[in-house]
């Protein structure tokens, strides 16, 4: 039941915020904040519980299940499940949910109630994506998070919001439709083979597919995830959407929405189609490396500060793609840490850009310069997250990138070596941002206030989180290890498989994965 609550709380609070928000702008904020804090507390409680071993009776990866009938005739169930991976991402969602509510406090002044409804609905959709274990339900949540996000950009965005919103919608929808076709294909192939027509993730995992069909279906899923992640060349929606969205929208987009892509790769691509994924591995890694380098170069070239930060996401998420397709346990772990850390560090940079724009009414780097002397606290915080972003040891991002590269090096030396070049480029864009924005002589006299106590608190908490992940990454690793173990095993075997093709062994290991995740049955909850 608790899994359902995780989705219902933000959704219900969103509706409530909308209702109380008619003619009032204070209550929606508090409602939303309370809901996100509750969500966060709940998620952290689950984490602590799982760490103490109370949730998992055995060493099985799944911590919680919830399954209800939905449309049994078609084999569609309302089934949710949580493992360490989803748990970490749910905690991140709730955390960034709080951040985005707080950072909108003074930025959003129109239709406050409806704004918070959309914000919370997006978060609910994202959490749903992280928990759904029925493919139709997954697709349903995938769409749920799209529409309110579209509205957030369309209504509360900046100058060019209409263009950005429609572009965001079209790209994501195109990917999602490819995934829908792939889901249906998988459903029918599975049904033909076994006689049971179901969308249940755990049953579909055992499906035997011929390589061609498997590759096609995998590419359908990959299309959706690659657009979301985003992988070059499907990334061009991102800078527009991130730049035009209101601050909270950018935080949610960069911090969470992109993670659904990475999550999808780990949750669906690797376990469902290990063979095709292994065959696709070199292409996937290459896409990752291209993203790392190309995104960083584009980021450096920007003059719009927010656009610069947006492009850094492409570079950072390239590491996730690389880590997933390098078929190495260490790299996979790194990819997960990278997702979490990118959510925090880039989210924080977007918040800072938003706060800056509120004050100086521009995002143009040419009009900034010398801001450190005017707003030193803001400068200090920008420096902290710029350093996190360039992967300085001591920050969580370093752990993610280091593990990804080290794991990748095991699989493919050259990919890792070229991707490491991204570390230099990250340094170039991050320091360039500091140089243009905060150092140098002030270009004009500005009478603006430094970070307020509320803003400073948000920044300090985010900074503490990114340090914690960098210095004590072990808790995060521990909670995700069992979840990744199954994937890791399949991935490792499939990785070897792709070098020495052997169909029989391959089938064996896939059914193996089905077994490790089998113990979920029966309706209701089994804690």
């Amino acid at each position, binding site marked *: 039941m608790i899994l359902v609550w995780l989705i219902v709380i933000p959704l219900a609070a969103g509706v409530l915020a909308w209702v109380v928000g008619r003619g009032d702008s204070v209550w929606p904020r508090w409602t939303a904040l309370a809901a996100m804090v509750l969500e966060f507390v709940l998620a952290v409680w689950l984490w602590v519980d799982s760490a103490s071993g109370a949730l998992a009776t055995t060493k099985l990866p799944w911590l919680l299940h919830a399954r209800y009938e939905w449309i049994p005739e078609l084999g569609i169930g309302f089934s949710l499940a949580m493992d360490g991976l989803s748990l970490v991402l749910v905690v991140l969602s709730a955390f960034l949910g709080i951040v985005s509510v707080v950072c909108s406090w003074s930025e959003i002044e129109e239709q406050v109630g409806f704004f918070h409804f959309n914000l919370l609905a997006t978060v609910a959709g994202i959490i749903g994506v992280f928990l759904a274990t029925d493919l139709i339900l997954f697709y349903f949540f995938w769409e749920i998070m799209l529409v309110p996000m579209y509205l957030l950009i369309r209504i509360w965005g900046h100058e060019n919001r209409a263009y950005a919103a429609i572009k965001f919608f079209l790209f994501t929808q195109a990917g999602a439709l490819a995934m829908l076709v792939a889901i249906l294909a998988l459903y029918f192939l599975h049904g033909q083979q076994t006689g049971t027509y179901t969308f249940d993730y755990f049953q579909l995992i055992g499906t035997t597919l011929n390589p061609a069909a498997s590759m096609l279906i995998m590419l359908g899923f990959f299309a959706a995830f690659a657009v979301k992640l985003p992988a070059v060349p499907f990334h061009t929606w991102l800078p527009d959407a991130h730049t035009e969205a209101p601050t909270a929208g950018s935080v949610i987009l960069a911090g969470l929405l992109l993670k659904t892509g990475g999550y999808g790769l780990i949750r669906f691509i690797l376990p469902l189609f290990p063979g095709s994924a292994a065959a696709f591995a070199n292409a996937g890694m290459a896409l990752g490396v291209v993203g790392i380098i190309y995104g960083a170069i584009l980021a450096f070239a920007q003059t719009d500060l927010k656009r610069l930060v947006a492009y850094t996401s492409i570079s950072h998420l390239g590491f996730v793609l690389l880590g997933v397709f390098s078929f190495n346990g260490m790299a996979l772990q790194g990819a997960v840490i990278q997702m979490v850390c990118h959510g925090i560090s880039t989210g924080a940079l977007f918040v800072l850009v938003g706060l800056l724009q509120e004050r100086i009414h521009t995002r143009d780097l040419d009009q900034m310069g010398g801001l450190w002397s005017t707003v030193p606290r803001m400068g200090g915080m920008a420096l902290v997250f710029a350093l996190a972003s360039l992967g300085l040891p001591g920050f969580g991002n370093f752990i993610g990138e*280091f593990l990804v*590269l080290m794991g990748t090096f095991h699989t493919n030396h050259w990919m890792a070596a070229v991707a490491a070049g991204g570390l230099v480029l990250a340094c170039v864009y991050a320091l360039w941002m500091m140089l243009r924005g905060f150092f140098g002589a002030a270009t004009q006299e500005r009478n603006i206030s430094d970070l307020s106590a509320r803003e400073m608190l948000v920044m300090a908490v985010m900074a503490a989180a990114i340090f914690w992940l960098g210095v004590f990454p072990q808790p995060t690793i521990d909670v995700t290890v069992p979840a990744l173990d199954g994937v890791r095993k399949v991935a490792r075997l499939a990785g070897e498989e792709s070098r020495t093709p052997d169909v029989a062994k391959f089938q064996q290991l896939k059914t193996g994965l089905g077994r490790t995740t089998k113990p979920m049955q029966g309706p209701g909850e089994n804690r």
Partner: protein
Amino acid sequence: MIDLLWLIPALPFAGFLVLILAGSRLPRIVVAVLGAGSVGFSAVVACLIGIEFISSPLVKTSFTRTVWTWMSFEGFSPSTSFCLDSLSLLMVLVVTVVGFLIHLYSVEFMADDDAYHRYFAYMNLFVTAMLVLVLADNLMLLYLGWEGVGLCSYLLIGFWYKDPVNARAAMKAFVMTRIGDTGMIVGLFLLYNSLGTLEIHELMVRAVRDWPVGSVMATVAAALLLCGALGKSAQLPLQTWLPDAMAGPTPVSALIHAATMVTAGVYLIARTHELFALAPAVQAAVAVIGVATLLVAGFSALAQQDLKRVLAYSTISQIGYMFLALGVGAWSAAMFHFAIHAFFKSLLFLGAGAIIMSTHHEQNMFRLGGLRTQLPVTFWTFLAGAASLAALPLITSGFYSKDAILWYAWSSEKGSVWLWLGGVAGALLTSIYTFRMVFLIFFGEARTKVYKRPGTAMLVPLIVLAVLSMVAGFIELPHTLGDVRLFSGYLGAVLPPVPIPPGQASLEGILGIVAAAVSVVGICLAYLLFLKVPQIADRAASTLAGRALHRLWLEGCGFDWLYQRLLVFPFVTIARINRSDFIDFFYQLAAFLAEGLHQGLSATQTGRTRHYAVGIGVGALIIIGMAVWL
């Protein structure tokens, strides 16, 4: 006491935390006490631990203490462990003691600065990171310190950020060293992938066990680590950031860009010397790079007008000597020169700082002069440092440390006459440019006014360092002059001695005399050219070739010029051209086509029956045609 090893880096870190979080609200005196005091305490602890360590049997091995495990899974478990052996103890002592003296000096030097607390916070963080670097027992933690010192260097070069020149110099330093660091981190991946650990001691054991001398893996791994060392230690071809790094406050240059951080590369190679010994090609490259660097930087130093830039090039050149020593396998000679260099070069920088402060920020040597009488203490201490740098025979430490390197460059199995000749030529250059500096600043006619004189907090470090620059060398004397081996004996547990082929030993005395003569000749030349008859130098510089050479040397032999055209400009241009991302163009094109199609089809919807009738007719014809002919 030795269990308190963690306290050495923890003290300055605590200082950093307090200063960065609350420093702006503290009175200046408290900031000074916290900033300098934390490093001072750390130095005291280091000395106590050092005494205990040296007098215990541990000195033959090492002492390791784990603070916490950084992360651990799949057998990969780098921990936050500090390892003390004779090599790291040497580094710790230099870092904390010299670091403390420079902090003390800064208390007065930076007294008028608005961001007093920020300065000390960064300095404390630097000392912390440097200590982590030298105490780390695994390469991942070492890398943390490695990047940490790079960060502090960046922050302190750009400390006066309001001038964009400083901020750019800071960025240049960070990016250039990061290029080397990236090579290094790939080296870490390679080492872990092949040997299955990053723990340094274990790594060396396994490398020696698994890799034969000259194997490809060892060569590549050593070359990659060398990349990191080249960047950090400002050696060819990654040396151009260091002269620009002089944009930072002068004590920063003394601490970071002379005494400690820039020698991290030397430390790294010494620390992994087993690996470099397995890769003779790379080790030879280290020696050649060292010689090339010391010559290039030596010539560049000769033409500079800015006092601090002379010292910067001199630092690059002296680290070149250390690389030369490492390249011929004279590990402990390299570390000896490191320690002595830390004393005399930080002394010279601090002296330069005193001059610059006294004359209201005059750094051009040609506008200084005759300061001998006005700043006597500064003069005498500066002279001590300069003599040591120029390796004035017998009485200075610098002579003994440089003489050892030159001797091994000739006599070691890996040495050669050419390396020795390069080193001797560099020694000549060194004593010329050093005394050019001394004569221009302190002799001749006074060209500037002295506004204020350095006080006690600045003079004490100068005097202490001057004494060290003079006497510290006597702990290691060549065979011909007393044969004292305290230093190399002490490091012997970690760094093996240099194998000298038989029949060479008799040469040591002769080579020593040559080195001594070169130093004296250089000083005399400097006296002649820059004080006695400056017309000679002027005339030489005014010929066509002289002007070209002068320009080349002034620009640091044109590396910046080359990089600007070869790398920076193309990168920036391509990035700018592609600012709006050419990939988006294809999507725009798709959108444009869709819209065009839409408008084209909309246009057919005219509302006129005639048009529709024609459409129906044509359509019918086509369908009938298809039915008939297909």
